């Protein structure tokens, strides 16, 4: 990401455009302040209160945070979320990389890229329902195949051990194409003559992948990872339509727990405190990943 804020372009007449700028900026700035800046500060404030929407928020200091630290369900949902993120991102990154490389080295077909992107057009709700049906224990084609292969039917979404991996893979299905196209765009920036030179030197595809593609793609890969990890932590929709947090809290991801606390039990203060915790975790991950990857800049301008 180029976050360079350059100096203002020189205009011939040199006057400032203050009034016009204010006019042009007004709607966006209004939206920014009212629906982003203010809610962010308010979210932090609410996390120090007891608040149920009906009576005014009551300041309780660190109570919510103390409660959070002693809440086993919170820790459990954090654990479940991390499990989900690791599985989701692990599989998705490897698969997306494979697809991107195949797209680059095999064909540049826009049709194939379009096809790969189609699941991304579905909402998480649709993707969840589609797979809920395919993986249905009694009638789903997925389980028909499992049983045709001679295994017992698997209650993919109703079993504590299977539920999280299943949800992780459903979301891989939906998102992998988009991630692959981001990586593909990164691959396009690698000049072709590097590959040709390597080929002349007798390098095979496998060797070229590890010696050329991976090192040169690393900065792009890093940015994509930061984006996808942050997105992955916010998993909610798929859980809500497929398992609703069950069985026995096995898929009670943090986001779902926060939602339940706010809208199921009307503990908006506590829910806000958990949101702050999630924000802190995400910020830490971003900073960490940014640091780690900055150290490994490649030589491709």
């Amino acid at each position, binding site marked *: 990401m*180029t*976050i360079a*804020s350059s100096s203002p*372009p020189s205009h011939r007449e040199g006057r*400032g*455009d203050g009034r016009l*700028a204010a006019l*042009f*900026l007004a*709607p*966006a*700035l209004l*939206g*920014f302040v*009212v*629906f*982003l*800046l*203010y*809610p*962010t500060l308010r*979210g932090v404030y*609410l996390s120090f209160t007891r608040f149920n929407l009906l009576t005014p928020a009551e300041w309780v200091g660190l109570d919510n945070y103390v409660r959070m630290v002693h809440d086993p369900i919170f820790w459990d949902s954090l654990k479940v979320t991390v499990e989900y993120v690791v599985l989701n991102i692990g599989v998705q990154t490897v698969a997306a990389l*494979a*697809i991107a490389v*195949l797209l680059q080295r095999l064909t*540049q077909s*826009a049709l194939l890229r*379009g*096809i*790969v*992107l*189609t699941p991304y*057009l*579905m*909402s998480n*709700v*649709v993707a969840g329902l*589609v*797979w*809920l*049906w395919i993986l249905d224990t*009694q*009638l789903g084609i997925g389980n028909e195949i499992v049983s045709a292969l001679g295994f017992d039917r698997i209650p993919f979404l109703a079993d504590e051990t299977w539920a999280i991996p299943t949800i992780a893979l459903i979301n891989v299905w939906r998102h992998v*194409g988009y991630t692959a*196209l*981001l990586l*593909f*765009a990164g691959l396009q920036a690698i000049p072709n003559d590097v590959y040709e030179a390597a*080929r002349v030197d007798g390098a*095979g595809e496998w060797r070229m992948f590890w010696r050329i593609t991976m090192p040169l793609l690393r900065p792009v890969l890093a*940015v994509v990872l930061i*984006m996808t990890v942050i997105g992955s932590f916010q998993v909610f*929709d798929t859980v*809500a339509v497929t398992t609703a947090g069950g069985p026995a809290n096995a898929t009670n991801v943090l986001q779902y727990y*926060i*939602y339940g606390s*706010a809208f199921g039990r009307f503990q908006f203060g506590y*829910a806000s405190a958990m949101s702050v915790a999630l*924000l802190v975790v995400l910020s830490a991950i971003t900073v960490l990943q940014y640091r780690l990857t900055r150290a490994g800049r490649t030589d491709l301008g």
Partner: protein
Amino acid sequence: MAVATTTTPPTTTTTTGIRPVRRRISFGRAAAWTAMGLIVLITLLPFYWILRTALSSNAGLGADPANPLPVGLGTGGFERALGLQSAKEAIAQGGAGGGLDFWRYLLNSVIVSTLITGCQIFFSAMAAYAFARLRWRGRDKVFGLFLAGLMVPTIFTLLPNFVLVKQLHLVDTLWGIALPSLFMTPFAVFFLRQFFMNIPLEVEEAALLDGAGKVKIFFRVILPMASTPVITLSVLTYITSWNDYFWPLMVSYSDSSRVLTVALAVFRAQTPATGVDWSGLSAATLIAALPMLVLFACFARRIVSSIGFTGIK
């Protein structure tokens, strides 16, 4: 972004010695194409399966779950999803018999997504122009603030925004759903600013010499020049708002503001855990997904080749 179709010709010379090498390469390519084929299959098969299920009857699905073709071919699923069947008929065919007004949810989705996309892109473009091309004090500081907004994950603002929308008495209205993303997203501003900055200054200066004002320049020169990124961003924004679930779920309680994603989840929740109306649910799923597939089909080439740009540049 032009798609370079460079199929690298093998630069190896054809001597007898490289025959095994060649063979290995073509074997590798065959394996790679097989992998590609598999990926396409996994990507597309669920879509076919939903279509096949939607066209089947629930009785047929139970009798022959692995049949690759629709079992008990019929449009009952679609009729139920669109509320065209009487409750009695629906229950007889395995539906819930509850009333779901899909046309209304479809309309709600269209209104919300159109409103969000139109306003958000327009306001973001104006702001982006102010950041890219207008001169004013404190510009870089304000832009820095916007960029910081990019770092706040959306989930964090959802709860406070709900409280705010409730205080504005907009809960359970389409305005309540649209409002938070109506004015801008930091990403849209950032994305368009990048593009505006790349438009040569001379273009603008020529228009200035012709006596055009800055406002006119923005509408007549800059916006038309930026049509490609604007369209790409619009389609992606439309898809995003169409597919949004969490926020509409929080804000809407009744038919008046229910959008398709939420309606689908309600449809699912209405049918009992045992004996789900899979045919009707699949039909409803297709109805919800189809508009985005059509929209994408219209703009696919443009979107596909500019994804990289929208994502990270």
